[in-house]
């Protein structure tokens, strides 16, 4: 009897999980399908699911009109650079908060998180003026700095959570064995927190890749990443859904592939503690 209940529950859970998965993935699937339709098929009512004349024309048009590789390279530099610099700053910060907390540590953590509640447009003009002064407008350096600063609170919070689960005694033992602070962080703490650091890097890479406010507002022709590439295919007058879908598919393909290959690492890092 209990076996039957377990099987039924398993079936329900499986169906539920697949349904939710398909529901979440459906917009992406629809975008990919639309990218292979003509503009007329893209707006057809009733919508065409699989049975239409598949075409690569939209990809050819997008490839001809835009320098995709330049946008892609800018995205890689901006997302990769901001994530790596952010992690390098956040590891010592999270270490100090996890292992040498002061009376104000929790306040600082909350304050850092509260900066995420500020609407980005509220600081657009100050940041824009600073960028003009420093000559950083439309540069990848400028965007790496801004996006790193935007994501830094999340990186610190995530690493802090992982570090908190590492017993302080292990680090103490390393210190008693003569390890310096630098050696303690690099050779003891970091290897133990690899799953957490890896998932932090992946998650922040995705956040930086998808960032669409600052990347649109602080770039023009040189440093524009894939978000600007997508935005250039939206039109106020004229049908554009098929071409926009092709551009979107090309923009999300690299991050989807990265996510697919690193999903085990990502799930492990997000669901397990450092020493479990």
């Amino acid at each position: 009897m209990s076996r039957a209940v377990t099987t039924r529950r398993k079936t329900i859970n499986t169906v539920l999980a697949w349904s939710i998965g398909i529901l979440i993935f459906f917009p992406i699937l629809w975008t990919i399908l639309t990218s292979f339709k003509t503009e007329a098929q893209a707006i057809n009512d009733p919508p065409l699911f699989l049975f239409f004349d598949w075409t690569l024309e939209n990809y050819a048009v997008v490839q001809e009109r835009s320098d995709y590789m330049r946008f892609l390279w800018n995205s890689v530099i901006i997302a990769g650079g901001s994530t790596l610099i952010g992690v390098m700053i956040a590891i010592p910060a999270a270490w100090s908060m996890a292992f040498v907390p002061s009376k104000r540590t929790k306040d600082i953590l909350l304050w850092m998180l509260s900066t995420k509640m500020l609407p980005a447009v509220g600081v657009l003009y100050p940041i824009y003026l600073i960028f003009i002064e420093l000559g950083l407008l439309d540069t990848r350096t400028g965007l790496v700095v801004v996006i790193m600063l935007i994501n830094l609170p999340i990186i610190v919070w995530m690493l802090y959570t992982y570090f908190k689960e590492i017993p302080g005694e292990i680090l103490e033992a390393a210190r008693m064995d003569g390890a310096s602070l630098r050696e303690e962080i690099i050779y003891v703490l970091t290897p133990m927190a690899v799953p957490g650091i890896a998932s932090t890097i992946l998650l922040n890479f995705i956040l930086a890749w998808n960032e669409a406010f600052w990347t649109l507002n602080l770039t023009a022709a040189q440093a524009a990443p894939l978000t600007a590439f997508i935005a250039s295919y939206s039109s106020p007058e004229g049908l554009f859904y098929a071409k926009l879908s092709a551009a979107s598919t090309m923009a999300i393909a690299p991050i989807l592939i990265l996510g697919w290959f690193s999903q085990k690492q990502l799930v492990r890092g997000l669901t397990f503690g450092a020493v479990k």
Partner: protein
Amino acid sequence: MYLKYALCAATALSVLGTTGAIAETITIATVNNGDMIRMQGLTDDFTAKTGHKVEWVTLEENVLRQRVTTDITTKGGQFDILTIGMYETPIWGANGWLIPLDDLSESYDIGDILPAMAGGLSYDGTLYAAPFYGESSMIMYRTDLMEKAGMEMPEAPTWEFIRKAAAAMTDRDNDVNGICLRGKAGWGEGGAFITAMSNSFGARWFDMDWNAQFDTKPWADTLNFYVGMMNESGPSGYATNGFNENLSLFQQGKCGMWIDATVAASFVTNPNDSTVADSVGFALAPDNGLGKRSNWLWAWALAIPAGTAKEAAAKQFIEWATSKDYIELVAEKEGWANVPPGARTSLYENPNYQAVPFAKMTLDSILSADPNNPTVEPVPYVGIQFAAIPEFAGIATEVSQEFSAVYAGQQTVEEALAKAQAITNDAMEAAGYR
């Protein structure tokens, strides 16, 4: 020996002098409209003629507005040419943010620009942006459905006729809606349509003292008529339909009539995209016998932001892109139906273009629009589907949200108009107009 070097140097300098200025790279911010994309594809012609290269930054319309506004107000200098419309040009020109285009070459023939376009893109008599293409709005209708309904579309119909024709053409069983109109919130979407429509009902946004006029009968008549007609003959969910949604419906044969931008004519008559391409007729936007039709006037134009270091190259580009020669170039490569319309008088005198089915109606619509006298009663502002003041975009977006809520059945016409009156008066008071 020295003499030889000196002669060489002098010769080199004189050659440089005769070939003109040093080649530059100019950056142009633009929108993703068909005509703009075509221009990007033809940029090599400009580079071959002048040596200047062009970098394009193509953005979604609202993003473009925000982006170039930020850049121009902070003197960021990211762009050498901006694609802006009739709403921004007089405001930005008055603020000194744009370089006047008062010294264009004689061969450019500035007098050939349609007076309505030149007027809408000027401030204090000075042109601040050159029209790349212009548009008004008109009726596009299905000739086969009109015939089936036993009616004939006049060249200049009234709203009453349109309502009757819409009801007669509606065939719910076959998913045919008599009329498709914009209802989507946004000052440039449903807001633009209802404002232009209200002009023909005798309504206006402000009186001469900048007091909101939504508590007047003409506004109630406008909204009641619109809602009544759309509920009778419009598509379901029209509250969220904008230009592209209606284009899609019309191209699939689901609209008997569609009143929208003249630029749509080339889309609905294109057999590659439209299933009704061979049965589309055109007529002037309707009126109510009060002397004002419900058509608007708009132009996408090229302007140079003050502070650019490449003013000379930017002017050369504007002269090239908005010239008669450019129109000839597009006609040669893509055909006369695809040339940028609505900017130059000479285009409409060209027999090749006169053969394009929507050419005459487009010109008639543009010529019947007067942005300086848009309403029956006098108004203190310029603009037909907008009032050319900086505060308008924000106010009209909020007001159009209230109107869209009426279309969606979430509130009554009276409630929406009362809110619109309060929103507008509050904003105008805060801005110091009242």
